């Protein structure tokens, strides 16, 4: 392949990416480290794979990420760091001795397949953090910026039982994962841009993280239901039945503050109990109440389970702020 054959291929790509590729290509020629996907693409002589990975990694240079994308990715990064640090504290692998010590009481009761699940989830959260940073997202948050009891630094917030009670810990983990799913869903529309390759690449990556968070939430539901006495509102299909605090299926006697928090996690302007969804056919908007469709089975429960709902950025911040010591506003 000669260099001239590269020109039309690159011309078809967003100019902003093309500019970055030129310097990136020069860097690779000089032996700079490239990510494994690029290396694999080059090894396979697969131009599309290498190009796609390059255009992604090109944004890792982090100079001029479009402002709308930067805002979404920075927000996502804060949430991913929160999740990652939470699971590391649970597992005892946090960089903060105090965070590890906080969960020492519950740690021994997370064993076997449940432990493997928490490890697998934490691995993904760490990968999400690394991926978002590679795209150019930035955050100053570290392990000590969190209070996983939801006390904003008091260490004595309403979620403190999670440090001693495995069933409650997993209910909180479920809530964190579902908040993540709802947060990404709420931001997707902000990544459409002009349907340009830059926005498309980031939107697609966000969707692919979004579905991983949903997988996490589903598995946690199954552990709770099969091994920890959760009620059948916690579905073995991993889905969310109904909305508001009841949708969490919390066991024991959660405090009023915890119930209120779960109410926000499964509530909001478009609560998880919503059954009406809006589509646009190119000329007109239609609101369709899925609970009114003929031919469906399982009643309204099934309809609420069949659709996950978004949270706005403000709603997400209201949910997670108690766990972050710095202000998110």
């Amino acid at each position, binding site marked *: 392949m000669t260099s001239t054959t590269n020109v039309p291929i690159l011309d078809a790509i967003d100019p902003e990416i093309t500019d970055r590729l030129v310097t990136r290509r020069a860097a690779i020629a000089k032996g700079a480290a490239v990510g494994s996907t690029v290396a694999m693409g080059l090894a396979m002589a697969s131009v599309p794979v290498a190009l796609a990975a390059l255009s992604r990694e090109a944004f890792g240079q982090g100079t001029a990420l479009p402002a709308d994308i930067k805002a979404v990715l920075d927000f996502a990064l804060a949430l991913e760091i929160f999740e990652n640090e939470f699971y590391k504290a649970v597992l005892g692998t946090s960089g903060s001795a105090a965070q590890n010590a906080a969960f020492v009481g519950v740690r021994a009761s997370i064993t076997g397949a449940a432990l493997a699940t928490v490890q697998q989830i934490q691995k993904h959260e760490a990968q999400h953090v690394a991926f978002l940073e590679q795209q150019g997202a930035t955050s100053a948050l570290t392990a000590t910026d969190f209070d996983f009891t939801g006390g904003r630094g008091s260490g004595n917030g309403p979620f403190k039982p999670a440090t001693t009670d495995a069933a409650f810990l997993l209910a909180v983990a479920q809530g964190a994962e579902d908040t993540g799913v709802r947060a990404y869903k709420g931001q997707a529309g902000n990544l459409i841009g002009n349907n340009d390759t830059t926005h498309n690449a980031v*939107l697609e990556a966000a*969707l692919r993280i979004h579905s991983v968070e949903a997988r996490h939430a589903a598995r946690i539901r199954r552990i709770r239901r099969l091994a920890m006495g959760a009620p059948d509102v916690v579905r073995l299909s991993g889905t969310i039945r109904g909305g508001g605090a009841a949708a969490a299926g919390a066991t024991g006697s959660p405090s009023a503050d915890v119930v209120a928090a779960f109410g926000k996690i499964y509530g909001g302007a478009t609560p998880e109990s919503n059954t009406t969804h809006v589509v646009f056919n190119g000329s007109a908007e239609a609101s369709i109440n899925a609970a009114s469709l003929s031919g469906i089975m399982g009643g309204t429960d099934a309809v609420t389970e069949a659709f996950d709902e978004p949270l706005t950025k403000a709603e997400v911040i209201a949910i997670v702020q108690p766990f972050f010591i710095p202000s998110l506003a």
Partner: protein
Amino acid sequence: MSEPRSSLVIDSPEDLWRSSTRRSFLRLLGVGGTIALAPTLFAACSGDDNNPVQPNGGGAQLDLSTDIGIFNYAYALEQLEAAFYSTVVGAANFATLFTDTNERELLTDIRNHEVVHREFLKAALGSSAIPALALNTTTVAALTADRATILKNAQSFEDLGVAAYNGAGKQLKDARNLLVAGKIVSVEARHAAAIRDARDTTGRAFAGDDVVIGGLDVKMEPAAVLARVTALNLVTTPISVAKQQTDAATADQPAPVAS
């Protein structure tokens, strides 16, 4: 360099999920080769063909350049999933194949959700909807033969659904439509995780290293998804792409085929 074969014989439904079969299939599509179904499968198809191909525009035609076309693509996939689970849960021997009430809850829930997805998309599309897809009953029977086969194929369907929505999202031009697709894809991901977990004892398969790579879930472009659907020989209604997507394809991370 290998010599491309000019024909491919598909002997059994089991062949259809196999990557070697799919590769041959895709290659043949690319070079205009011939694909032959073994006589048993072919005979089974003919009796089910309630939607005979009409010249110039029969079957299900997808215009992937519009949101409506992408929704029709999703509607086609939801039809297949709903039919698969409806067959499983509606079978007279459902409770015999699945003696565990937890597994019956799992599959009944998913059947209900997929039917809701199908009926919702049908309503959203209105007069723009593609027709109801006619299915090859022999393939359906093979995919739903016993408990292990059902769970295995359910896993393949769910992972494929996740990959399809993840790959198609960027084609949607309207934020309202993207949101609806987002509301559905995370439910498909929950299903995929739940089915995988029902087949697993390690605690990791729900989002295993075969399906989440570098923290990212599977994604496939429509052409790759439709090739897999075609290779399954599940649908007798011809599905064709009348107009290609407008936004550039990205590299696929294909949904694994369950084993």
